[in-house]
């Protein structure tokens, strides 16, 4: 039996019939074609699928689309203002906070929520806040610097 959902994603309202078991990440990737949200583990272990749901960072691989019904979702595709990058996006470029880029959308979304809660975090607070997001490329150092850069800029 399909389930009817209404969501706002990156400022656009959508209404779709979805399977009960469909995950939010599948909805974003398969239904809306927003492939910037990545699936690294399917078990909320890696954080590559992190998006904002009603302002909170959630791992969209373990949220049902149905659970997000009525919610407001922001994905990596929703951050830039046209060609103008969000300060966090700019920061990841300036501070070389990414290599292969696969964890990057999730890192940026996790960083976004952190800066929302704590606009001027210490290195330790940043490292603690990113514990749920795995990166195999960078050793995290430049990700921490990126978030510091964005904090200083905002």
């Amino acid at each position: 039996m399909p389930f009817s959902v209404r969501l706002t994603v990156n400022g656009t309202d959508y209404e779709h019939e979805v399977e009960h078991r469909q995950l939010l990440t599948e909805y974003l990737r398969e239904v809306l074609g927003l492939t910037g949200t990545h699936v690294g583990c399917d078990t909320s272990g890696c954080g590559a699928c992190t998006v904002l749901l009603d302002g909170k960072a959630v791992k969209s691989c373990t949220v049902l689309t149905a659970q997000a019904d009525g919610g407001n979702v922001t994905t990596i595709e929703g951050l830039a203002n046209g060609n103008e990058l969000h300060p966090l996006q700019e920061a990841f470029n300036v501070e070389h906070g990414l290599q292969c880029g696969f964890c990057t959308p999730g890192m940026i979304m996790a960083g976004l929520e952190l800066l929302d809660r704590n606009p001027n975090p210490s290195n330790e607070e940043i490292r603690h806040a990113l514990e749920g997001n795995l990166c195999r490329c960078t050793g995290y150092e430049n990700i921490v610097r990126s978030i510091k850069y964005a904090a200083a800029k905002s």
Partner: protein
Amino acid sequence: MVKVIGESVKRVEDRRFITGRARYTDDIKLPRMTYASIVRSPHAHARINGIDVAEASAAPGVVAVFKGEDLHQESVISVPCGWQVDFKNGDQMLEPPHPVLASGKVRHVGDAVAVVVAESAAQAKDAAELVEVDYEVLEFVVDSLEAVADGAPLVHDDVPDNIPFDWELGDQEKTDAAMAAADHVVTLEYRNQRLIPNAIEPRSAIGDYDVASEHYTLYTSSQNPHVIRLLMCAFVLNLPEHKVRIVSPDVGGGFGSKIPHYIEEALVTWCAGQLGRPVKWTAERSESFTTDVHGRDHVTKAELGLDNDGNFVGLRVKTYANMGAYLSTFSSCIPTYLHGTLMQGLYTTPAIHVDVTAVFTNTTPTDAYRGAGRPEATYLLERLVDQAALKLGYDPVELRKKNFIPPFDGVNQPGYETQVAMTYDSGDYEPVLNRALEMLDYEAVRKEQAAARTQGRLLGIGFSTYVEACGIAPSAVVGALGARAGLFESAVVRVQPTGKVTVLVGSHSHGQGHETTFSQLVADRLGVPMDDVDIVHGDTDLVPFGMGTYGSRSLAVGGSAIVKSLDKVIEKGTTIAAHLMEAAAEDLEFAEGKWTVKGTDRSITFGDVALTAYVPHNYPEGLEPGLDFTSFYDPVNFTFPFGAHIAVVEVDADTGKVTLKRFVACDDVGNVVNPMIVDGQVHGGLAQGIGQALLEGALYDDNAQLISASYMDYAMPRADDFPEFEIDRCVTPCPHNPLGVKGAGETGTIGSTPAIVNAVLDALWHLGVRDMEMPLTPESVWRAINAAASI
């Protein structure tokens, strides 16, 4: 002109990644695409007595179900190994089949048994649950020492003692004599534990077949698309190579795990041919854990002989290398030619012998993981050196310096001939160590350690000085050693009529930032803005045959191929410019994007020459139009980066927890094109090396189930596991490639692991702790402290 080489130019490829517009294999959706789910063995070793696919075939959305016998009727052959390492006695390497889908038997948990193709991924997964496999469970073996013991179950019936090959290097007689005569012999027996690479992008593959043109396309998350095409076409599916295109689009990390040709690549390609529809497979993370190749897994006994003055007089090594259930693509060269050949380290040890036995077990196949053999060699050497220092009362710095090979630049002094078949290109080992000591303030930290000890705090300082081999590799040399491929690299420099430049490269970037670094080479050489350069990689229909990216080879080998083509562009451009300016070619000089007649202000721009090459109205007689050159660069030698790493740790005696307080690394990777990118490579490498020392390890239980098969169970390094790294570099150029570069992708991983373990032992030595197995978890450290206290 703006200097571009040696500058930390921001990455030009970043925009697509930070805006969510990158395109990884799983992001690709083709018309009429179907989805594959693979039925995998839950058993480590079992005979397949039957597979019932009736219920699965009838499930909603299912398009087809295939099992091993379906493929083998179509002449699908097994996946080959890419490197033949023959037995010491000359017998040929035993290479049992690695079937695309299991045939008769399964040999590790995760071995592929059948594939279900359906209209949606969910339907494929649902139906895969309905495939009934009748397994007859067989005895299995996981541990390499148990596998070579008498009476061990055989992983392959036709491989006696589970040994596909053994191997040795160095002079055994001389080494045995040196060890017998040594005043001291320091011995370590340990496991270099099995690791799981864990690229964050799970592997993914899409097969597509165009019935009309009989062309296949395979999209795959690979580090080396041409290698995949060659292996799959020539050895597995018997397809005409000119009708097969492999695309490796954005790839989310490799670390070696995306080098091998995997069965899933052949499987989706074959399925697409059968069905006439695209077939996509993307690994779930649990599949990644059980079927991505694993790394390391050596059991080693290593002995270092010293005389009474602290000189190293001999090194003797015996290693059992766990290959897992099949020989993966490059698995055989890793414990041998990428491990045994590094046993000289940066020391003058005059007698070395290394003996390796490869072993099959009922585990996931092993292959390259960042460093691939060199981390294992460095761990062995550097643990021995610090162990010798602690045991015999030397300062680890002085003991190293006493045994360092004297400086040689490979130009005025010849390269250094090792006891183990390598000729180091250039090396100057004291400066990196001195710089690292300076960054650390060694004397102050030793004082801090002594003061801390009086307060009952356990501080330790650990060292690692390493040399490694990368820039892989001279084809003739590796061919003589059993490689079934050449290891050159290719590059096309295609100057467009408007002077813009497209560069097509056979290497592949999956995080290394090639689009930036290679553009810097072009901008520097041709004097064009970086914005005018585009780098294309990862598509076998576009780029010339290349070997891909691994072994820190892309700049040293691939970058050198680009330079060759750039030089050809400039040479031909000079002929055109000379014609246009009615001057002799030898009177021209090319700099900053224009040709100038020496001593005059007469010049012509690169763009004008490019346009002339494609609009050749006023053109040198006999010269072909166009400005487009392909080059293949085959290096004359490996490159040998080196460095010094120092770890400072504090151990909590009550909990066993190790806190990494500082990590100092001074590396010498030759010339550097983009320091920011090299720093990033070092950071990431350090995290993986430190991860091995403190956190990571693949664990099989008594039933040969991989119990570290999720991110809940496998301890991946996280952001709060590290201090800020303190890194610097010295520069000793490589003498044999045009850029003087050596390679920076793996130094962090190769150097760091023993420094951590050495530091922990330095902290605990006075308590009686003499050795520990990685990873140094709080439990293992706590147990070691308490075991020592109870003696």
